[in-house]
Structures are given as C-alpha cells and as structure tokens.
C-alpha cells in the first residue's frame, strides 16, 4: 500500500513501511479493518506536519510489524493482544497530535478576530441552557429523577439543535434577500427544510406505507 504522502518526508525509511504493511496485512485478519482505519489518519497527520511527528509513529509501526513477524512464527496467543494495544497507542498518539494542531489553528484564528467577532464568539461559547430548567423539564416528562450526565448530554444536544436551526434560518434569510434579525418566516422555512432532511425528530405523524 504505497502512500505517496507518507513516502515524501522521510526518505531513508520509506522502503520499510512500504514492505512491512503489506506483509503484516497478510497476517492480520480480525484487526485488519482497524488497521485500515488508522492508515488514512496517518496520511493526514503526515501531510500536515512535515516530518515532525512522523518518526515516533513510524518507529512504533516498525516495532509492531517487527514484533508481529517474530511472534507470528512462534505462537499465536500474544500477537493479537500486542497488536491491538500498539494500534490503540498509535491512534491515541495521532489523535493527540491532531488535537494539538487544531488547538493551534484555533488560537491563530481567534487572535485575528475583530471586536464584534470576539463578542459573538464569546456568546457562542458561553451561552448554555440552565441545567436546573432542563432537569425539571426532563423529570416532568419521565416522572422519575435523571442523572446529572443525562442533563449535561441533553442540554448539549439542545444547543447543537438550536444552532442547526439558526444556521439554516440564516441561509434562508440570505437566499430570500432579507437582512439579519431573523423573522419567524425564516425560522419556519428552516424547520421545514430540516424536517425533510429528518434532522428534526417527529413521531406525531404516523407514516402509512403505500398510502
């Protein structure tokens, strides 16, 4: 599996990964799918950071491949567990690097905001539904108490939902040639569009097959 993006940054080691993965994929059967999932992530991280994070993940991969070839011949029990653990560590490392990257990009972006944009961003981050009211609402529906995690999850989802509606309504508003304070007609059209995409849950209308 030749990854052109991966071959570029580190020249000396390029032949080894090209060989090893093909051999190890032959020996892997169950973790084969997870192996393929980690490949695209590796390509992404290498294209983003030119060789900075490549060497540790590459050496871990080589060690894994080398370990597989050695153990595969002797016994079958240690390899699967070792494979899974090393893959998990690789994934964690890549995720960590991707997070750091994203944090840096966000910092650069926020530092270049105008004052109005900063205000809006602050409101975007801070606005939240009051946990007490959400808890009361859910408990009035279920009749029994709910855990704190449920309240946290529900208020988070409700905020994302509100955001989806407002964004769609802003699209509608722009499309109809109107200006920002959103009017009810924009909101209703936004809901209609989201409903057709099934993003607004609705179990009131009974769908009859072959009506």
């Amino acid at each position, binding site marked *: 599996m030749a990854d052109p993006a991966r071959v570029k940054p580190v020249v000396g080691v390029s032949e080894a990964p090209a060989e090893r993965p093909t051999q190890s994929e032959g020996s892997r059967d169950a973790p084969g799918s997870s192996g393929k999932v980690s490949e695209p992530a590796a390509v992404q991280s290498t294209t983003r950071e030119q060789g900075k994070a490549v060497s540790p993940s590459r050496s871990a991969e080589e060690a894994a491949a080398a370990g597989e070839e050695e153990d595969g011949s002797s016994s079958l029990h240690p390899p699967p567990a070792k494979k899974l653990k090393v893959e998990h560590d690789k994934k964690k490392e890549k995720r960590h690097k991707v997070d750091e990257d994203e944090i840096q990009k966000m910092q650069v972006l926020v530092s270049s905001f105008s004052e109005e944009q900063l205000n*809006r961003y602050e409101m*975007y981050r801070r606005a939240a539904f009051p946990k007490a009211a959400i808890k009361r609402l859910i408990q009035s529906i279920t009749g029994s108490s709910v855990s704190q995690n449920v309240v946290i999850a529900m208020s988070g989802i409700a905020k994302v939902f509100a955001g989806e509606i407002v964004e769609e309504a802003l699209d509608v508003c722009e499309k109809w040639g109107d200006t920002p304070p*959103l009017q009810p007609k924009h909101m*209703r059209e936004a809901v*209609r569009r989201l409903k057709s995409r099934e993003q607004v849950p609705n179990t009131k209308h009974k769908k009859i097959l072959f009506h």
Partner: protein
Amino acid sequence: MAEEEDDPGFDEDLDDGGNGVDSGQGKRKRLFSKELRCMMYGFGDDQNPYTESVDILEDLVIEFITEMTHRAMSIGRQGRVQVEDIVFLIRKDPRKFARVKDLLTMNEELKKARKAFDEANYGS
C-alpha cells in the same frame, strides 16, 4: 397538540411579547428567553433578535427535548432516561454525537481533576 408552524394567527396578530395572550403553547412561562437570545447572537443572528423568533426557537427546543426524552424512555431500560440511550438515539447525527462524546469526556476529566485537587488539599 397544534404545532406553532401550522397556526396562522400566531405571529401576525402578536404584537407584545406573547406572554399574556394564549400563544399556541398554552400559558407556559418562557423558560429560556434570556439564554436563547445570547445563543442566537452567538450563532449568527442580530444582537437583538425578534421576540417571536426566540419564542419559536424555544418551542422547537422544548419539543426536541420532549421527543428525545420519550424516545429514550422507550428504548433500553423502559421508563428511565439513561445516557447510553441518548447516545444511541443520536448515533446517526455526526455533530450531535461528537458533541455528546466531548461533553461527557470533559466532564469525566473535570471530575478527576477536582478529586485530585481535593485529595491534595486534604493531604496537606
């Protein structure tokens, strides 16, 4: 229950904030007016959004929460709402799913940090 979007006289006749008059949802007090205004500004609306729009959004959010709660009660352990049920219901929507995972992970981390901090204080 009549949906607000289908009720024609709802928005046109309403001049005041919609508190005294029967505004389509019964005489329920507005629960999230302040927070929703800030939220709408954060998501891109004007700094002073229309009250009618805020009302519509509040009704939609309450309907959404009600719907999710009913669905969560009907799956998993019946009659109770648990986090796993919510995560299961949300699985097809990538944004909400990622958000819930992030929130729960961050909550766990904060709890651990608080616990470690308290233990450190207790020790000294």
